[in-house]
């Protein structure tokens, strides 16, 4: 629980952060630190320099942009959880942010940090996938936008490249549409053993937590939902394309079962009828 020694520099703006990254070899960005720091303390990750982007206030915001809401990457989970704007238009996102860890974690952790970490067991990537979010990535060459469905590339790897920052996440408004998040875990503070995020409406989406090496968009189930299939039919195809693993908490078979059960429960919670 003692990390390898490292240097620390503080970035004051996105440009500054990118410049610092170019300047320092073997550096990493530090946001809320709630994924990176524990891994460093276990010596699973080390880095010569941490570039603290957590104090870049220009990346902490929740803005109404007409057809979508833009959330700055450094917005804390607690702010997402408590936002009345999000509660009105993106209830799923606000709710899921409130399911991350415990209040201490939610006061430090950031939306961008959680998404960039790309942990298949994390809550927020599933909300981004189910909601069809767009990720704004800024690098030395400028800005590009990547759809959530293409963002999670591999285990703990996203479309954000070296020397780039996820700066903003854009969520199409889902005002008045049903949603649900069913999370199964042993303890309230834990990562999900399995969770299911459901968003109804014009582009319905179902996303799964901890069902493989990346956060998973359940395309077959989402298509079934769009087609108005019965809940049981949606659940039947929800694990298509997943590669859940066995661990001390669950076997693959049990995870797949949970995904189906939680899908049915989530749909029931939204009042979904075929």
């Amino acid at each position, binding site marked *: *629980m003692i990390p390898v*020694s490292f240097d620390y520099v503080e970035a004051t703006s996105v440009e500054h952060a990118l410049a610092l990254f170019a300047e320092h070899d073997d550096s990493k960005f530090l946001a809320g630190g709630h994924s990176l720091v524990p891994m460093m303390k276990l010596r699973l990750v080390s880095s010569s320099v941490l570039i603290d982007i957590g104090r870049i206030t220009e990346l902490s915001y929740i803005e109404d942009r007409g057809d979508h809401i833009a959330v700055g990457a450094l917005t804390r989970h607690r702010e997402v959880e408590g936002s009345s704007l999000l509660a009105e238009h993106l209830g799923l996102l606000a709710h899921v942010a409130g399911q991350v860890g415990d209040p201490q974690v939610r006061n430090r952790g950031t939306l961008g940090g959680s998404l960039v970490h790309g942990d298949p067991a994390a809550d927020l990537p599933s909300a981004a996938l189910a909601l069809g979010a767009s990720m704004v990535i800024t690098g030395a060459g400028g800005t590009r936008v990547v759809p959530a469905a293409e963002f999670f590339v591999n285990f703990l790897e996203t479309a954000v490249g070296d020397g780039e920052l996820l700066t903003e996440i854009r969520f199409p408004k889902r005002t008045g549409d049903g949603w649900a998040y069913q999370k199964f875990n*042993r*303890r*309230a503070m834990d990562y999900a053993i399995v969770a299911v995020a459901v968003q109804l409406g014009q582009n319905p989406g179902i996303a799964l937590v901890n069902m493989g090496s990346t956060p998973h968009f359940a395309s077959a189930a989402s298509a079934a939902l769009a087609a108005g299939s019965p809940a049981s039919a949606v659940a039947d195809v929800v694990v298509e394309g997943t590669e859940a693993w066995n661990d*001390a*908490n669950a076997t693959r078979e*049990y995870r797949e079962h*949970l995904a189906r*059960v939680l899908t049915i429960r989530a749909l029931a919670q939204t009042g979904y009828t075929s």
Partner: protein
Amino acid sequence: MSLIGARVLRKEDPNLITGRGQFVDDITPAGTVVMAFVMSTEPHSRIVNIHSADALALPGVLAVWTAADIAELSTLGLPGLGRPLLATDVVRFVGEPVAVVVAETKYIAADAAQLVIVDYESMPAAPSITTALADGAPVLHSVLGGNTVFDQPFVDDLAADFAAAPHTASLHLVNNRCAAVPIEPNACLADWGPSGLTLWATFQAPHHLRNTVAAYFGIPQDTTRVITPDVGGGFGAKINFVPEYFLACALSRKLARPVKYTQTRSECQVLMYHGRAQEQDVDVAYDDDARLLALRVRVTQDQGAYPDPTGMGLPVLTTAMAAGCYKIPKVAISWRNVVTNTTPVAAYRGAGRPEASYLIERIVDLVADQSGIDPVEVRRRNFIPTDEFPYATHSPLAVYDSGNFAGAMTELLTLFDYDALKAEQARRRNTRDEKLIGIGFSSWLEIAAFGPPGSLEGFGHLGSWESVQIRVQPDGSAIIYTGASPHGQGTVTTFAQIAAGELGIPFDKISVRHGDTATVPQGIGTMGSRATAVGGEGVRTASVRVVERAKVIAAHILEADPADIVLEGDGFAVNGTPSHSVPWSEVAWKSFRPLEIPTDSEPGSLDITVFQQVPNFSFPSGAYCCTVEIDRGTGEIEITGMYLVDDCGTVINPLLAEGQVHGGVAQGIAQALYEGISYDENGLPQNSTLMDYLIPAATELPSYTDGRVNTPTPNNGLGAKGIGESGSVGAPPAVVNAVVDALSHLGVQHLDMPITPLAVWNVLEEAK
């Protein structure tokens, strides 16, 4: 005025909740350096080579020691099977210290430890009882020939009784290996200078440590001082000797610097002694009315890689307490200790008794299941009657002092509507997907108040008494020094409560000091639910003697006969004439002034030391009920009720007694449903962080409903039996019985702890 039974707030808390507590790691004398271990990553390997040059070359590193550097330091534990301070030639569990590094800071120490490279030659490992006892199993200690350390066979295995019995029931039970997980991991600070050795340690028995360290290094006790400052929990895992204490001392002597060691959580998970890790084969014979005729228990205790004296004692306690609350005509016991390539095992909250209550309460439920007789009724038919105390069991260790097992059960059934719950359970079973209900009972009993002569000496303690010294100060306040060494129990509060009533000195003017061998006369420590029943009784005894002497002085001042003096108001008065009085402050002041006390008295007489003994153990008991609901879709188990009737005899402070029970029950629920150190087939630990070793938090635990019966122990004047371990003894069988009950209509008769949603789901799937 007596404060016994009063809900007094803890004296300890203002310091702790304002961050002013002082733990070992808070103490840093000038020049302190830090030590860190290089720990084995292998379960069972020969050490071929240790490369420490790179670590030694790191700036800020003072020393890197391996076994070769400390050849003169002896091993710990059992003779012939000793645990070396640093692995010598062979490592026997993952986490075993192989080398120790000392550096100027903990960061350098951690870096240096990582630079030490150990070449291993792997050998087959035996990381479980089954693999250690298998034919051709790898042998951990060649001196043993196999892996069995000690085997106590049955004197009579009751084969004839079982053959003749109308019915029998049998279970093979596994008491899962648990980590104590005190909030403060192990820590020590050794400062060996010209005037002697001072060792700060997070430990439950400071004098025991002082005596042992002095003997280990061959130095006198008068210049060897052990200080246990605030201690953040111990749960029994801090009563055993570990290499770090002795290495820190040796390194401090060598380097002439204070040497500090503070364990990280991940280190603590593999290096601090584990608990439980016991398997049991249990058989009972019973008649058509579910009356128990005979009990046979064979215990196999996993000792981990190196047997510890406390660990060796675990199956002794389990088998002594195996018959629980029941009158069973014939009981046969047998046990063996087995070494495995795992972290050593020793005491953990309850130490052998949770295992005992688990086996008897599980098998009684199985009798109920097989006979079709309600589990409450089966218990009632077999309880030891209230008029049969003291009750001699099959074991000379266990002569039950007092109890009211049927009364506790009656009280328990007033806390909830059992019949209504059973009806609802039946209704739900007939629905397709409503949650299943389970109701589990535990009529438990444990052995506490480790205090009778001989009870602790076998574990290397100087005695089994506890010391209490009361020193009345010149202003009439009092300081109590005690060898009891609390680490979260609230002893500072309860001892002051006991003394306040006996001395007639206000609670706020009584301080309790502990945890320093330089100031406390002698002492044993806090373990085995003994602090109140032995040390607390010592406070009562010493207080009575102080008052006797104070009365002599008061009588002199009041010109009366000491026999006529009584405690009255804020001091003493002549019996019958309360106005003829003298305050404590005046008696205390004059007790130090030779001209103002009787000529045959000596100044400073209000200073009494007692070494309190008790004639027998006490046997706290109780009746618990756990109710659960099981989600048929996910297998999730939710505890919906936890009803707790305790009998700890006299309660000194209900607030603290409830806290002890609730905390113990939380640990019991944890063992039943969440916790369990596991190793893979190669001997690699699978859950060495709190990410994967699941400790339930407030969000997972139910509200508790408390009840109480009170049968005071005759063994001490207070009537207090001890309560520190009750919850962890009583809860696991209640929880497991509830889950098994919920699934019993599917033919389930047993599930091993920890019962996970996955295990429940597997049962539900099989039943489909």
